[in-house]
């Protein structure tokens, strides 16, 4: 066990030295893997941020209830009492038709039109504050529609739902992209290891002749794939982080126009760690496949 650990440590050090000894090739390989991983990673970061924005927006979805014209004061009071008992409705604000008309009159765009009106065409209305998702609103819908003296129920969540669906779609696209590029990463490692095996052909042959086990000969290549994958993952994180810094400058300027201080967040520590582990695993997998395929070809003659 101690021997095994010692050999791993020695191999690890040797592999690092080897990588450092050929900085240009190492850098290029790491960059290829880094860029390949950065694409889906960046997409994932954008989606994560968009997701949190929509959650904020949908935090208090509103529902407007327009009352039938014949609804009287007693009906309104009864409705208000009932609305407050419906689970999922946080607050119900009554907006009388006169107040709604005043609001339109104050608005520059509609003031002229409103002035020509003989009678007030607007109904009385309730604006409901609800807590919860689009799905919950859907559940509320039939219940609200069944209330007496209600002419129309309007949800303002339709576009939010569309956005959520769009994000879901993009998520699938990112997942497909990530899968494809993961194969790319495996292929890159496969090829690097193949070249490395060819470079060390003499050493492998001599090692086999003097009694090295297959496990011993394979080990440095596994280390190489693992380290290269992890470095690639690190490069991907750095690329995405830099892109985010650059984007945030523009986003902040845009957000300020809307009176918001929104900016792109970054991954947490565990997400970063998960990515590194995943990248290292893919590197190892590429190395494993390459070693299984190419090492047997080198037999002493």
């Amino acid at each position, binding site marked *: 066990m101690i*021997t095994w650990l*010692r*050999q791993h440590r*020695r191999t690890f050090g040797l592999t690092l030295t080897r990588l450092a000894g050929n900085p240009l090739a190492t850098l290029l390989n790491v960059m290829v893997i880094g860029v390949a991983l950065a694409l889906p990673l960046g997409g994932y970061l954008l989606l994560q941020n968009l997701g949190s924005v929509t959650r904020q927006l949908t935090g208090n979805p509103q529902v407007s209830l327009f009352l039938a014209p014949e609804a009287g004061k007693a009906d309104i009071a009864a409705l208000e009492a009932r609305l407050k008992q419906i689970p999922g409705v946080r607050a119900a604000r009554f907006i009388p038709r006169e107040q709604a008309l005043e609001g339109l009159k104050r608005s520059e765009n509609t003031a002229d039109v409103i002035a020509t009106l003989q009678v007030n065409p607007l109904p009385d209305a309730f604006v409901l504050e609800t807590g919860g998702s689009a799905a919950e609103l859907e559940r509320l819908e039939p219940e609200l529609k069944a209330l007496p003296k209600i002419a129309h129920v309007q949800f303002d969540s339709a576009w939010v739902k569309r956005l959520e669906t769009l994000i879901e779609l993009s998520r699938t696209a990112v997942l497909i992209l990530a899968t494809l590029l993961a194969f790319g990463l495996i292929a890159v490692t496969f090829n690097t290891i193949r070249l490395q095996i060819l470079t060390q052909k*003499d*050493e492998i*042959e*001599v*090692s*086999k*002749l*003097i*009694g*090295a*086990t*297959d496990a*011993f000969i394979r080990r440095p290549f596994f280390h190489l794939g693992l380290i290269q994958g992890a470095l690639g993952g690190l490069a991907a994180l750095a690329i995405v982080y830099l892109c985010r810094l650059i984007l945030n400058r523009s986003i902040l300027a845009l957000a300020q126009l809307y009176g918001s201080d929104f900016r792109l967040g970054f991954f947490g520590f565990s997400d970063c760690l998960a990515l590194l582990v995943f990248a290292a695993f893919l590197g190892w997998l590429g190395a494993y496949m390459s070693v299984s395929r190419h090492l047997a070809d080198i037999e*002493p*003659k």
Partner: protein
Amino acid sequence: MISFSQVRKSYRGGHEALAELSFSIETGELVFITGRSGAGKSTLLKLIPAIERPTSGTVLVNGQNIGSMRRPAIPYLRRNLGLIFQDQKLLYDRSAFDNVMLPLAFTGHAHKDAARRVRAALDKVGLLAREKANPITLSGGEQQRLCIARAVVNRPSILLADEPTASLDSASAAEVMEMFRSFNQVGVTVLIATHDEALVQRLNPRVLVLKQGRLAS
């Protein structure tokens, strides 16, 4: 220690390198295998470390049957053998010291212990002063001695050498032969394939003469 019985080895394409070969070598013997090029000397030597497997017949090394040996067992067989090649097979990307260190890398010796053994082996072949040199800067005789140091660093019980003096001048060749004799004197079984008859006669050892894959007596 090493025993061949009815060994036949034919390569793909029908070329028969060894035929009906039977002999045995006891522990501590010094044996030469001579014969013209193509007589099967190299093939015979390759059968012992399982680089080649016999087509039929039995090759026993330390009681292990080479023909039926499973792949994972082969490295452990080879660790008990010291192999010396005509083309040395040294690695030119590292020092003489690191070349000799190679067999100890996978046996789990502590670094300090391994380094001591490497220096002892280099000392035995007279290359201790050149331990930091790259093998490419060594002369032909020195390279062959370095190959010997690498073969003995693991203290094998059997040394196998395939044409170890082929590319050496007569003085270096005599030196190398003297080295084999001194290893044999401390109990190592030594098996040397060579076509240099003059060198063989001087040592007066047991000689196996191969002719077209058979023993000629």
